[in-house]
C-alpha cells in the first residue's frame, strides 16, 4: 500500500514539476521572442527551480531534466545572439550569477559558459575550469550528477583538444583531460555517495537507482576517449594515475583493460602498482558481482588472462619487488577469479601455479608478511567453495603449502579445518580424505624440524580437537566407501605418535561404530557373501585401532573404547567378538590400571556394560561376571569394595523380559556388601574412634528395596526390617557422627517406604509388614 502510494505520489510530483516547467517556458518563450533578456533570465531561473525537487527518483528526475534541457537549448540560442539581447557575453556570464538559488544559477552559468567558449572571448580552459569548480556547490548526489552531466554535455564539443578550434596555449590537451577528469571525479564521488544515503530498508531500491545513474557518469568516458590528443604518454602519466586513485566506473576499466594493463609494466618502480592493481581487481570483481548479466563482458574481454599476464609482466619488470608484493598481487587476482569465475577451477589452479613458480627456488618463507599473504592466498578458495575438497584437489594447492614453514602450515591446516566445519559439507570419498589429510599433515604428524616438546599444550590440544571434529565430517552413505574413508584416516593418524592418538582414536572408533550400527540396520537387505564392509571386519579394524593406544599408553581410554566396541558387537550378535573385547578390557584392568581411583571407575564401567550384554551364553557370562565380582571385592578401599559388590548384584538380575534373574546370587552379593560395610564401620571405629556415617548401609537398603519391589523372592520384608533396625541402632549408638547427608538419605528412604505403604494396592500390601 505504502509503495503504491509512493509511486502515485511520485507521478503527481513529476506532473507538477512538468507543469511548472511548461508554465515558465511559456513566459520564457515570450521573453525570448521579444528579446527581453531580464525577463528571459527571470523565467529561466524559475523554470530551472523545478529541478530543485528532492521528491523524484532518478528515473523521474531524468524526465524532468530532459524537459528543462530542451528549454536550455533554446535559451542558449538566444544567449548566442548578442544583437538580440544587447548584453556582452562577459556581462551575461556575470548576470546569470546573480540568481539567488544555486541550482538554477549553475545551469544558467553552464549554458552561458558554453556560449562564452564559442565566442572565444576567453580561453576555453579558463571557462571550463571555472564551471567545473563552481559546480561543487551542488552536493546533493542526484541534482549534482545531473548538473554535471549537463556540463559534460554542453562542453563536450568545446574542449581545448588538439586540432579543435578551441585549442589553447601550452599543454592544451592536458587542460581538456584535466577538465573531463575533474568533472568525472566529482560525479563519481556523488555517485558513490548515493550508496550511503537513505534508510537501510530502501537500500535495494537505491542501488537500482544508482545503477540507472551509472550511464550518466559513464558519458564522461566517451568524451575522454574521444579527446584526440590523448596518446599513451598522457594516458600513462596523467590519466592512469588519476584513474587509479579515483573510483572509476567499472565498465570503463573492463573495456580498456588492455591499454590500462599494457601501461602498467612501463610505470616507474616507485609507483605503487601493487595497490593500484589490487584495487582495480577488487573493483572489477565488485562490478561483476553487481549483476550476473555482466559476465559475458568479462569473458569477451578475457579479463582473467589479461590480468594474469599483466601481473606476470609487472613482476618480471620489477625485479626488486619483494616477494610479498608479488604474492599480494596474486591474492588479488585469485579473489577476482573466485568472484568472477567461481566455476573456473583451472583459473584458480593457474594462479596458484604462478605462485609456486615465484616461491620455488626460494627457501621456506621467512618473511612473516609474505607468509600472511600466502595464507590469505590459500584461504581464499576455502571461503568461496562449499565443496572444499574439490577446491583442494587443485594440484598446485599442496605445492604452495609446501613453501610454508611448519608453524604456518599448521595454521593453514587449521584454517582448512575451520572452513570445512563452517560449511558443514561432508567429505565423502576416501580420495578426498586422502587429499585432505595430506594437506593437514602438519596437524596429523610431526613434521621435520619441529619437536613436539616445545609446543604450547593448549594450542596442541586445540589443534587435535579440531582434527577430532573433522573426522565426524568425513561421511559417506555408502558403507563400503565409508569403510575406505575410515581406513584412510586410520592410515594417516597411525603416524601421529603417542601424543596425538588419544585425541584422534576415539572419534575414529565412534565413527566406525556408527558405521557398524548402520550395517546392523541393513542386515536384512544385504545379500550375497562378497560384502566387504561387514561388522566383523570393522571390529577387527577396531581392535587394531584401540590396540595402538598401548604405545601411548592410555589404558583407561582403551578400556572404555573396548567396552564400547563390546556393546557394539553385542548389538550385532557377535558373541565371540564381544567376549574378546571384554577380555581385552579385563586384561587392561589387570595389567595396566594400577591407580585405585581409576580402578573404581573402570570396574563400574565394566559392570555397567556387562549388565547390558545379552549376547553371552551362560558359560561366558559366568566367567565374566565372576571376574567382575572378584575384582570388585579386591578393590583397595572398603567403601569402594562395598559399592562395587552391591553394583555386581545387578549382573544377576536383568530387569528384562527374558533377562537373567538369579535371586539367590543377588542376595549373596548384597549380604557380602553388608559384611564389607560392617567391616568398614569397625575399621573406622578402630582407627578413628567413631564408626562413621551409615551411608553405606542406607545405600544397601536402597538396593534391597529395589529388588524387593522387583519381586526377588530372596528379599523379604523381614530382611529389610532387620536392616532398617540395624541402621537405626547404628545411628543411635553414635549420633554425633551421623552426617547430615546420610541422615537425610535415610530419612527420605524411610519416607519412601511410608509412602509405598500408604499408597496401598499390591505394593502397599507388600510393604505392610515393615514397621518403621
Amino acid at each position: 500500500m505504502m509503495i503504491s502510494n509512493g509511486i502515485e505520489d511520485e507521478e503527481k510530483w513529476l506532473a507538477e514539476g512538468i507543469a511548472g516547467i511548461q508554465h515558465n517556458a511559456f513566459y520564457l518563450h515570450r521573453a525570448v521572442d521579444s528579446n527581453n533578456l531580464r525577463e528571459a533570465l527571470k523565467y529561466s531561473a524559475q523554470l530551472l527551480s523545478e529541478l530543485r525537487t528532492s521528491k523524484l527518483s532518478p528515473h523521474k528526475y531524468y524526465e524532468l531534466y530532459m524537459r528543462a534541457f530542451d528549454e536550455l537549448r533554446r535559451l542558449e540560442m538566444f544567449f548566442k545572439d548578442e544583437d538580440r539581447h544587447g548584453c556582452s557575453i562577459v556581462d551575461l556570464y556575470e548576470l546569470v550569477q546573480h540568481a539567488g538559488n544555486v541550482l538554477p544559477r549553475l545551469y544558467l552559468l553552464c549554458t552561458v559558459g558554453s556560449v562564452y567558449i564559442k565566442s572565444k572571448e576567453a580561453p576555453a580552459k579558463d571557462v571550463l575550469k571555472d564551471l567545473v569548480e563552481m559546480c561543487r556547490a551542488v552536493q546533493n548526489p542526484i541534482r549534482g550528477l545531473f548538473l554535471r552531466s549537463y556540463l559534460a554535455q554542453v562542453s563536450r564539443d568545446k574542449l581545448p583538444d588538439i586540432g579543435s578550434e578551441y585549442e589553447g596555449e601550452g599543454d592544451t590537451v592536458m587542460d581538456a583531460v584535466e577538465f573531463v577528469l575533474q568533472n568525472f571525479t566529482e560525479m563519481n564521488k556523488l555517485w558513490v555517495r548515493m550508496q550511503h544515503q537513505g534508510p537501510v530498508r530502501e537500500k535495494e531500491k537505491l542501488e537500482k537507482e544508482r545503477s540507472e545513474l551509472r550511464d550518466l557518469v559513464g558519458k564522461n568516458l566517451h568524451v575522454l576517449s574521444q579527446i584526440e590528443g590523448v596518446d599513451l604518454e598522457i594516458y600513462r602519466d596523467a590519466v592512469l594515475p588519476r584513474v587509479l586513485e579515483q573510483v572509476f566506473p567499472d565498465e570503463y576499466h573492463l573495456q580498456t583493460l588492455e591499454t590500462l594493463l599494457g601501461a602498467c609494466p612501463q610505470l616507474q618502480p616507485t609507483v605503487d602498482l601493487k595497490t593500484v592493481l589490487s584495487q582495480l581487481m577488487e573493483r572489477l570483481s565488485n562490478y561483476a558481482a553487481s549483476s550476473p548479466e555482466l559476465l559475458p563482458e568479462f569473458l569477451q574481454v578475457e579479463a582473467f588472462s589479461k590480468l594474469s599476464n599483466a601481473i606476470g609482466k609487472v613482476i618480471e619488470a620489477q625485479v626488486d619487488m619483494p616477494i610479498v608484493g608479488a604474492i599480494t598481487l596474486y591474492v588479488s587476482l585469485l579473489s577476482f577469479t573466485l568472484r568472477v569465475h567461481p566455476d573456473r577451477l583451472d583459473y584458480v589452479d593457474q594462479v596458484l601455479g604462478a605462485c609456486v613458480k615465484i616461491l620455488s627456488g626460494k627457501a621456506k618463507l621467512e618473511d612473516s608478511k609474505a607468509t600472511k599473504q600466502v595464507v590469505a592466498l590459500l584461504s581464499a578458495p576455502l571461503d568461496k567453495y562449499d565443496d572444499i575438497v574439490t577446491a583442494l584437489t587443485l594440484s598446485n594447492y599442496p605445492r604452495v603449502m609446501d613453501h610454508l614453514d611448519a608453524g604456518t602450515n599448521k595454521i593453514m591446516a587449521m584454517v582448512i579445518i575451520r572452513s570445512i566445519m563452517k560449511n558443514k559439507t561432508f567429505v565423502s570419498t576416501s580420495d578426498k580424505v586422502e587429499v585432505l589429510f595430506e594437506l593437514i599433515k602438519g596437524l596429523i604428524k610431526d613434521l621435520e624440524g619441529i619437536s613436539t616438546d616445545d609446543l604450547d599444550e593448549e594450542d596442541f590440544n586445540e589443534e587435535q580437537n579440531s582434527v577430532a571434529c573433522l573426522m565426524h565430517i568425513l561421511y559417506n552413505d555408502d558403507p563400503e566407501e565409508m569403510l575406505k574413508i575410515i581406513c584412510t584416516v586410520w592410515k594417516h593418524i597411525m603416524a601421529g605418535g603417542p601424543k596425538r592418538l588419544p585425541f584422534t582414536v576415539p572419534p575414529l572408533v565412534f565413527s566406525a561404530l556408527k558405521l557398524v550400527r548402520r550395517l546392523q540396520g541393513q542386515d536384512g537387505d544385504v545379500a550375497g557373501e562378497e560384502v566387504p564392509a561387514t561388522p566383523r571386519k570393522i571390529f577387527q579394524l577396531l581392535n587394531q585401532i584401540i590396540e595402538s593406544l598401548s604405545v601411548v599408553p592410555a589404558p583407561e581410554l582403551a578400556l572404555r573404547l573396548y567396552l564400547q566396541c563390546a556393546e557394539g558387537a553385542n548389538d550385532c550378535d557377535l558373541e565371540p567378538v564381544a567376549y574378546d573385547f571384554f577380555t581385552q578390557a579385563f586384561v587392561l584392568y589387570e595389567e595396566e590400571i594400577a591407580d585405585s581411583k581409576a580402578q573404581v571407575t573402570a570396574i563400574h564401567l565394566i559392570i555397567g556394560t556387562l549388565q547390558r550384554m545379552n549376547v553371552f551364553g551362560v558359560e561366558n557370562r559366568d566367567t565374566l561376571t565372576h571376574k567382575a565380582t572378584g575384582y570388585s571385592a579386591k578393590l583397595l578401599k572398603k567403601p569402594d569394595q562395598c559399592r562395587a559388590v552391591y553394583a555386581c548384584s545387578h549382573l544377576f538380575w536383568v530387569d528384562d523380559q527374558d533377562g537373567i534373574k538369579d535371586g539367590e546370587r543377588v542376595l549373596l552379593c548384597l549380604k557380602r556388601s553388608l559384611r564389607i560395610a560392617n567391616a568398614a564401620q569397625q575399621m573406622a571405629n578402630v582407627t578413628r574412634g567413631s564408626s562413621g556415617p551409615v551411608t553405606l548401609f542406607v545405600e544397601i537398603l536402597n538396593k534391597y528395596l529395589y529388588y524387593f519391589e522387583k519381586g526377588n523372592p530372596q528379599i523379604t520384608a523381614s530382611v529389610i526390617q532387620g536392616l532398617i533396625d540395624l541402621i537405626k541402632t547404628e545411628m543411635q549408638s553414635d549420633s554425633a557422627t551421623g552426617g547430615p547427608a546420610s541422615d537425610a538419605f535415610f530419612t527420605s528412604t524411610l519416607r519412601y517406604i511410608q509412602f509405598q505403604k500408604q499408597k496401598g494396592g499390591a505394593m502397599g500390601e507388600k510393604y505392610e509388614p515393615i514397621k518403621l
Partner: protein
Amino acid sequence: MNYIIGAFKPACNISVTFSDGKSRKQVALKKENGQTVMVPLFQSQETISGKISVEPVSGKKVEHNGIKVELLGQIEMYFDRGNFYDFTSLVRELDVPGEIYERKTFPFEFSTVEMPYETYNGVNVRLRYVLKVTISRGYAGSIVQYQDFVVRNYSPPPSINNSIKMEVGIEDCLHIEFEYNKSKYHLKDVIIGKIYFLLVRIKIKNMDLEIRRRESTGSGSNTHVETETLAKFELMDGAPVRGESIPIRLFLSPYELTPTYRNINNKFSVKYYLNLVLVDEEDRRYFKQQEITMYRLGETSEATL
C-alpha cells in the same frame, strides 16, 4: 468661486534648474509618498548652482518680504517624526522684499559645499539634501518649494584589505573553515571565497550567504536597531562530506547597498554583515556572522573588478 479656488492654489510656480542639469548624472530617489523621482547627483565639495524662476499665476502679482534659497542637509528620525535636524544649512538671499508681476529668474550658487554625509533612506532614519526656496509673505503665509538632490561620496580603495578567514564549529558535529577574500568591499564588488568542510556529522540541506544591514539610530537608552536581510544567496545544495570545499562568488551589484556609515553626526550608523547560514534537514540553522565594510568606489575605477 474663483476667488476661493484661487486662495488654495499657489500664487506662483517656482522651479529650480541646475546649471549643469543636462549633463549631470541623475539618480532615482524614493520620495516620502513612495514615488520615485530622478534627481541630480552631487558629491561633497562640488559647487551647486543654477537658476530659480518664480512665475506668478497668470495675471496675479506676488507680494513678498523677500525670497531666499537654502541648502539643507537634514537627518530625520522616523520615531521622532517631523523633527528634522539640520546638520548643514546655507542660505542665499535672492530678492529683497517687493512684488513680482511676471516670471522672474534668480541665479544662485553654493560653491564647494561641504556635504560629508551621503543621502540615505533607511528604515528608521533618512538623510537628505534639499534646496528650499522660500517666498516670505506676511500674513498670507510663505510659499515654499523643495528640490531634492542626492549626495554620494567616493572613497579610494583601502590600502589594507585583509581577507576574513575563520574556523568555526560545533564540537563533534560540524567544523568548517571559511574564507572571504576581503574584509572591505565596494558596492559593485564580488565576494570570492570558499567554505571548507572539516567535519560533517549533521545532515546539511543547504547553505546560504546572507547580506544583512544593521541600522542603529539614536543613542543611549534611546537606541533603535533594525536589521534587514538584503540578500539571500544560496551557496550550496545538498549535504557535503568531509573534505569538500564549496566556492563562493557573490556579485554585490544586484543589491541596493550603501557604504558603511559609522556614527553619522552622532545620529545613526549603518553596518553590513555577511551571515553564513547552514540549514540541516530538520531545519535547524547554524550561522556565523561577520562584519564587512562597504565603501563606494569612484565610478571610473569601479569598472575594474
